[in-house]
């Protein structure tokens, strides 16, 4: 296993790879530093999607992001799923592999949602053990992402950021910090998102997610169908100040606009970073030299 000093270098500002954008990307459109692919979308036998992915990974750094690891589930780890994931990783050679701190179902059923976890010692012990097994099997560290939650559990014994921190340290994994999810969960559960950001250890975070959400008044839903809200850009600036240059990825899953609109949003992130004098490239160069 790698040591912490080998934290992957920042990749700059990337986009989630979505099929409507294939033609522009293959035409060489500029303004995207790297891509994140949903692993499951390419865990298929063959055909055009895998060929296009082969081409894109020749030209750009790629990371794999999964939605069905179900790391927090009390059901046994799905070894067939892990075998497929590993097979894809062998082909793609992603900079890292991520999934979510959540569960997706029990009793062999997949609810296809990122379901919330009680922040208990029991859950922590359980998840640490599973992350360990997964990392051993894949032969690399994984990154786990904080999800948007709409409910919490009375049995929770610690905050989400305490739970994530303990998990990353005990399981020796990376974290993917979704800034929009921090904003959404903080709003829904009534805490200050800055406290969350301040509670996450800087040396564990390899990636940020940025996305849009839907404000329903009494609660916010993480919909990924809008541009990033200005409050979340503010929180991103705050987060960048704490963490420095961290690979930043814009997610859009619904109402997918022309890729130029998303590149313009990436430029907003770039503008925030440069306003704060955070230079992604020299950070990357320094990592390469060391």
């Amino acid at each position: 296993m790698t040591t912490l000093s080998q934290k992957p270098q920042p990749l700059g500002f990337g986009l989630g790879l979505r099929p409507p954008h294939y033609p522009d990307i293959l035409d060489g459109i500029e303004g995207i530093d790297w891509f994140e692919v949903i692993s499951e979308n390419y865990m298929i036998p063959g055909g055009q999607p895998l060929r296009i992915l082969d081409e894109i990974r020749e030209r750009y750094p790629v990371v794999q992001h999964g939605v069905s690891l179900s790391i927090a589930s009390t059901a046994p780890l799905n070894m067939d799923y892990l075998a497929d994931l590993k097979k894809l990783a062998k082909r793609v050679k992603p900079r890292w592999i991520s999934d979510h701190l959540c569960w997706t179902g029990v009793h062999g059923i997949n609810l296809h949602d990122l379901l919330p976890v009680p922040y208990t010692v029991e859950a922590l012990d359980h998840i640490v053990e599973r992350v360990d097994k997964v990392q051993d099997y894949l032969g690399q560290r994984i990154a786990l992402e904080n999800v948007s939650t709409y409910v919490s559990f009375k049995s929770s014994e610690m905050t989400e950021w305490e739970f994530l921190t303990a998990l990353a340290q005990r399981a020796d994994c990376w974290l993917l910090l979704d800034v929009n999810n921090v904003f959404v969960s903080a709003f829904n559960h009534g805490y200050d998102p800055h406290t969350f950001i301040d509670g996450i250890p800087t040396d564990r975070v390899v990636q940020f997610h940025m996305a849009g959400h839907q404000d329903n008044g009494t609660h916010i839903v993480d919909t990924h169908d809008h541009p990033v809200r200005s409050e979340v850009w503010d929180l991103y600036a705050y987060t960048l100040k704490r963490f420095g240059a961290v690979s930043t990825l814009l997610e859009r899953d619904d109402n997918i606009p022309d890729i130029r609109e998303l590149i313009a949003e990436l430029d907003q992130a770039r503008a925030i970073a440069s306003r704060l004098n955070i230079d992604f490239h020299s950070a990357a160069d320094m990592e390469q030299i060391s």
Partner: protein
Amino acid sequence: MPTLEEIQNGFQKAILEGDKSILTQIPDTPKEKNDVLLGIYQYAYSARLIEFLENDYPQLHAYLGDEQFDQLCRAYIAETPSHTPNARWYGNELPIFMENSSIWSEQLQLPELARLEYSLNIVFDASDEPLLRLDDLAQIPPEQWPSLVFSPVQATRRLEMETNVTDIWNALVTDQAPPDVQGLADPLQVLVYRDDQQSSFRSMSYEEAMMWDKMAAGVPFGVLCELMATWGGEDDAAMRAGSFLHGWISAGLITDQIDMTNTSRGAP
């Protein structure tokens, strides 16, 4: 304090069965009641699965319209929890579900349309395999030909349609009004395949379809020629068989895995 397992069992029950016992473990937030918040997950469950089905069956969706398609999805979802980690496979059983349902098979073109779309999806991301080339065939000595067993690539499916569903599909996919449904006296033989990375289909003559099916079942080329003679007449039966095979190989439908049967007909 409930265990993690108890919480997950309770939460899943709420989503799948609407049993809200888990609410005793969930606090209200300062702004909202716990049952409204749990409802977000309950709503999202079917909404997400419907979205998967919409992605996989766009022409069936267009043909049925939003309301009926939604009804179909909800009926399918109620009977079919997902057992796959990959959304791509969730809708695989929809054609069977429709074929087995008295409501959804009453209009035969509906399950046929589902079956056609399912087949197009399956060949789209089926395995990439090494293909047989015409040059490879030239290397094979003539006396071995009768015992050769050819295999279709995995990116193919054979269908028999009892309605004009292919006309309906062709209209829908070009945003035209679909024709009235018609029953066919003889089923239409269809081959679904992949051409230049895109799914496609074409009709086949009865003779071509029968030869394809027998070939796919592992019948050696010599026997295929004899069957062709029985079906379509002795004259140039071998030539007709050869010409179908030539067409399939040229279209990239045959793998490079040629088997040889060592028991030719009549041998002990």
